[in-house]
């Protein structure tokens, strides 16, 4: 039996809107093995961030609801934990790194105060002095030069990369066992992105935490993840170990994604492969294959109404078995 830190079973998350209830995540299941990195990839609106917020129980209130499913973290079903109970888990055992540190950090508080707050809230044995010391240590660990000076600075005084390091410091302050990183490097330059990804993998080796990395960048996935989940329109279409997924993509959507990125070794000024059209709107999502309309392959009415099941077609490789989008050789 693999040692899974997180097990999600058939998660369904919906939002109340003026036009009725919209299902953003529709029956998602996956596991994260302890100490590994799971990548979640997909286009904007595919439900990857909502999945993350569901795990953290940070869905916008009052419109966001988890309608069904289980989120088992170290054996505890988070969907059943009362709000007070989540305060103790969130930040201490599971923490989150957001995309844009400028909006996730509080602009009117000094960096150091925001980090030491984590210690003061969760660690009753720590006084202000001890929290200061611990904050300096963690700032140093994430590679912020002269942490004593940075401690007293405001977020706007730091560069984008430094701010993201400060966010990582805050997320890792209490040595959580699971970190959810939602597009942690999307707002950064490619050089700084490389620094941050390196930092995260070094810290993972040192602290042994598990990571769920949400991104739309397949390059980032290839470089950092052990296993990958590909999401499309609220559902998982494919899931596999990273090398297997890149070597042997089985679903039409995964193939489309992999082929549409321009490559450095590709021929210049040639037409790129595209996935035509757009993701269907949440309010008129088909029950059946949701990629059908964009796949360029004619789907029958039945295929568009009957939900394709996710099946394990080879060890560890799962694919949504729409008869048109997945055609085994």
């Amino acid at each position, binding site marked *: 039996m693999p040692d899974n830190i997180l097990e999600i079973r058939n998660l369904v998350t919906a939002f109340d809107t003026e036009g009725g209830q919209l299902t953003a995540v529709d029956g998602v299941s996956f596991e994260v093995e302890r100490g590994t990195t799971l990548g979640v990839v997909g286009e904007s609106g595919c439900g990857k961030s909502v999945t993350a917020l569901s795990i953290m129980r940070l869905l916008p209130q009052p419109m966001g609801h988890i309608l069904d499913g289980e989120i088992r973290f170290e054996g505890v079903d988070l969907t059943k934990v009362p709000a007070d109970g989540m305060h103790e888990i969130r930040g201490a055992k599971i923490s989150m790194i957001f995309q844009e540190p400028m909006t996730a950090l509080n602009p009117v508080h000094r960096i150091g105060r925001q980090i030491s707050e984590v210690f003061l809230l969760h660690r009753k044995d720590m006084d202000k002095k001890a929290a200061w010391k611990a904050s300096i240590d963690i700032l140093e660990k994430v590679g912020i030069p002269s942490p004593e000076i940075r401690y007293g600075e405001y977020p706007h005084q730091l560069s984008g990369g430094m701010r993201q390091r400060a966010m990582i410091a805050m997320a890792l302050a209490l040595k959580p066992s699971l970190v959810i990183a939602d597009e942690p490097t999307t707002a950064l330059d*490619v*050089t700084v992105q490389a620094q941050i990804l390196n930092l995260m993998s070094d810290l993972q080796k040192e602290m042994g935490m598990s990571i769920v990395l949400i991104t739309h960048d397949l390059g980032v996935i290839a470089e950092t993840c052990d296993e990958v989940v590909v999401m499309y329109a609220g559902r998982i279409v494919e899931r596999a170990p990273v090398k297997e997924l890149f070597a042997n993509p089985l679903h039409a959507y995964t193939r489309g994604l992999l082929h549409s990125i321009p490559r450095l070794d590709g021929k210049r000024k040639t037409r790129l492969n595209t996935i035509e059209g757009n993701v269907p709107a949440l309010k008129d999502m088909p029950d059946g294959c949701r990629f059908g309309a964009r796949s360029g392959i004619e789907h029958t009415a039945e295929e568009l109404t009957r939900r394709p099941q996710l099946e394990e077609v080879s060890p560890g490789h799962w694919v949504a078995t729409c008869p048109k989008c997945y055609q085994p050789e």
Partner: protein
Amino acid sequence: MSKLLEIKNLKMHFPVKGGVLLRAIDSCKAVDGVSLHIEEGETLGLVGESGCGKSTLGKCVVRLNDPTSGEVHFEGQDITHASRKTILPLRRDMQMIFQDPAESLNSRHTVRNIIEEPFIIHKIGTRADRQKRVDELLEKVGLSPAAASRFPFEFSGGQRQRIGIARAIALNPKLVVCDEPVSALDVSVQSQVLNLMLDLQRDMGLSYLFIAHDLAVVKHVSDRVAVMYLGKIVELAGADEIYQNPRHAYTKALLEAIPVPDPTKKREHPILEGDVPSPIHPPEGCAFGHRVQAPKYHESIGQEIGIEEIEPGHWVSTCPCCVER
């Protein structure tokens, strides 16, 4: 081929105000001595990290910024200090596509108003002509003419960028400055927009100044690529050449930092540390040598660093610490 646009030793320094009287106490050297040219029908890619001055350079080209010194020639005409009256007709030939179409399209105007506006500004055609042109343009960028009566928020990001492109090509321009045109888009949509831009270039003979930070995208669309660091061009060469044979340490570092979508390849080289220094107080010597603590950094202090042609069409900075000779 002839030169459509030529920039000579362009500088754009913004005053930094301070003190009680808000006098200029310092200057931010966003663009600091850039020379380059774009030929007809060509795409010049411009890459660099944020804060290196690439957007400012793009705005100087279409004169949305007034350069501090240097020269901008468009079709042989010096437009560096051209008055508003002389620049207006030239703007028909130079257009701009912005990064975030949600912000660069007026949300209170219908798509028709947005695309029609260039014709109204330049007093072209009757109402019926304009109507027809808008429909044609929408079709050209892959939208249905029915889109004309809708508002920008009713469209997805990729469709909005198509509207921005339709507006930019409305007057049959010669040069389009594209400032990060696809960085806000998803990969599947990004490739649609890039294909559209390549098609339009072929059909209309457009020249692009393509500003982006994604080197794979830049390589795909460009004929030549210029690499910018802290207000200066450090390397400029043919797109294939610069990727196969980068000479400047910064170009090499940028290329190595790109995550490769292939899990069997692992990064071999050490990654570039630190950030771009402040353009207000740049280091004394070479700005990049200072960042990476190049062993020969001291040689660059006090030197005037320019750019020289080391092979036909391959220009690289004369910095002693970043380029091996």
